């Protein structure tokens, strides 16, 4: 029975502001303890990668940041998640408002069966955006590096685009709400290498303005795009715990924990 050492890596996030933090975050699905005591500080305007083998709870942790787990009736959490100092599960936080500030991109591109334009305009519309919608749509598509490819087919269905374009459309859709944080759940796992490269390039560009948390099982990707890396691992009880967290360069070159080293050198996972 391997008992994981408590994580020692709070505090230093390279001098950046803190955007999100979790404190002893636990989550259960029914009676299954999915993640235990995750304490993590996510710096603003940096890319933070959550890595680890399948089933280690990295997506579950990601979905705690915008309370997506609320949609799963049997999910229950303890501990704290703070966004800009506010407890997002507390009485002062409304999940709908929270999700307008913390956008999300999913593993499989999930554009709505609507036109490219309507996909991007959906978020601003429901949020009562009063400015120039055409401009906002164009700006969002430009930020997602998709404008040049779709500017002549804004009225076509978003489902008619290629997989990589669909994923960038989903990024544009998330950016159109003008969030502070972008959660990305294995955003390139369903894409070919060229489309993956474009998404990674985009993340590097976007981190100037957005806090990005990305879940990935691709360690090369984590080392290429992220500034900080958190390594999660599930024990024999299948409960995910944080093993190591720190600047990406350190985690990948001088991991403190031997299990991290074993994982990043490809000995398991």
């Amino acid at each position, binding site marked *: 029975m391997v008992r994981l050492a408590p994580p020692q890596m709070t505090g230093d996030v390279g001098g950046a502001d803190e955007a999100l933090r979790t404190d002893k975050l636990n989550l259960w699905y029914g009676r299954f303890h999915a993640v235990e005591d995750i304490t993590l500080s996510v710096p603003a305007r940096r890319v933070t990668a959550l890595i680890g083998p399948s089933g280690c709870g990295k997506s579950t942790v990601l979905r705690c940041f915008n309370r997506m787990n609320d949609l799963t009736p049997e999910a229950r959490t303890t501990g704290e998640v703070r966004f800009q100092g506010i407890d997002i599960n507390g009485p002062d936080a409304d999940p709908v408002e929270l999700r307008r500030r913390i956008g999300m991109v999913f593993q499989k591109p*999930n554009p709505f069966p609507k036109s490219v334009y309507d996909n991007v305009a959906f978020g601003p519309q429901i949020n009562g955006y009063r400015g120039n919608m055409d401009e906002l749509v164009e700006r969002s598509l430009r930020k997602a590096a998709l404008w040049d490819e779709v500017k002549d087919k804004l009225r076509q269905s978003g489902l008619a685009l290629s997989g990589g374009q669909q994923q960038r459309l989903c990024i544009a859709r998330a950016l159109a709400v003008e969030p502070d944080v972008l959660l990305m759940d294995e955003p390139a796992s369903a894409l070919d290498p060229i489309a993956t490269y474009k998404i990674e390039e985009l993340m590097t560009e976007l981190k100037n303005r957005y806090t990005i948390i990305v879940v990935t099982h691709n360690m090369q990707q984590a080392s290429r795009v992220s500034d900080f890396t958190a390594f999660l691992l599930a024990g024999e009880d299948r409960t995910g715990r944080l093993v190591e967290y720190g600047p990406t360069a350190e985690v990948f070159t001088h991991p403190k924990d031997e299990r991290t080293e074993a994982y990043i050198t490809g000995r398991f996972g």
Partner: protein
Amino acid sequence: MAGISTSSVQAAAAAAQVGAAPNRSLQTPRARGLRERLIEAPLFAAAFVTILTTAGIVAVLLVETLSFFRVVPLRMFLTDTQWTPLFSDKHYGIIVLLSATMLTSVGAMFVALPLGLLAAIFLSEYASPRVHRVIKPVLEILAGIPTVVYGYFALLFVTPALQRMIPQTAVFNGLSASIVMGFMILPLVSSMSEDAMAAVPRSLREGGYSLGATRFEVATRIVVPSALSGIVAAFILAISRAVGETMIVAIAAGQSPTLALSPLVPIETMTAYIVQVSLGDTPHGSLEYQTIFAVGSTLFLMTLLLNIISQRVLRRFREEYQ
């Protein structure tokens, strides 16, 4: 003996007959092959009976309808504004019966469409699994009530209630039949619409929620539009059901073939007319008798058309996420 690992006694016996040869045969044991063929025959026969029945009904409809139209010109059938085949002054204007059918069907849709859609949205997007487990069977019970019960419910309960509200309401009227028929097809609309909404991938809902949409916005702006073709197909099928419905309209709407736009007066739908003539003493083979086949064919064409449209719409819907 991997080939007979099903451990069927007959198969083992068949194998034993072959003898314990060192090279096991991969041929089908004779007994099993025979059994399979024996099962196939009745299955095929059962399937064939349904085809035969359908073909027989269509053939009878066609033959009788054709001999009807040898006497009554199609033009008169389509343009006359009176329907009096049982009187001495005979008129054969199908529009009279058709308008009554349309009136009651459209009226039923006014009840079933909004209620069914709202119920489907509730069941698919709002109801907890526990509430769902209670409401769904109740709706299905509604679908299981015999239509003759609905008919008497309309005549003996809804009509008196309507008469209290609108005094000029006749004992037999289209409104009462419409309302009750709306409730009869409500389970069909809600259940098929809910199925269509349940087929909308969870990832689309999550996409909506992740943009800060409320539950209502996700339901009305993502789920319903994404399931629209399935919902439309449900509506069309429900209309087709209402058009063909007989007992409720025969009991509650009356049997007076009048070309009326008012839902408060007695009318006669196509189905009610067929009931009236089939139960009466109209001589077999007479022109009066053949009218019911002409009306039946019209009805058949209408529902067939509606069903084809609904299937087309559904097929398009299935391709949407793939």
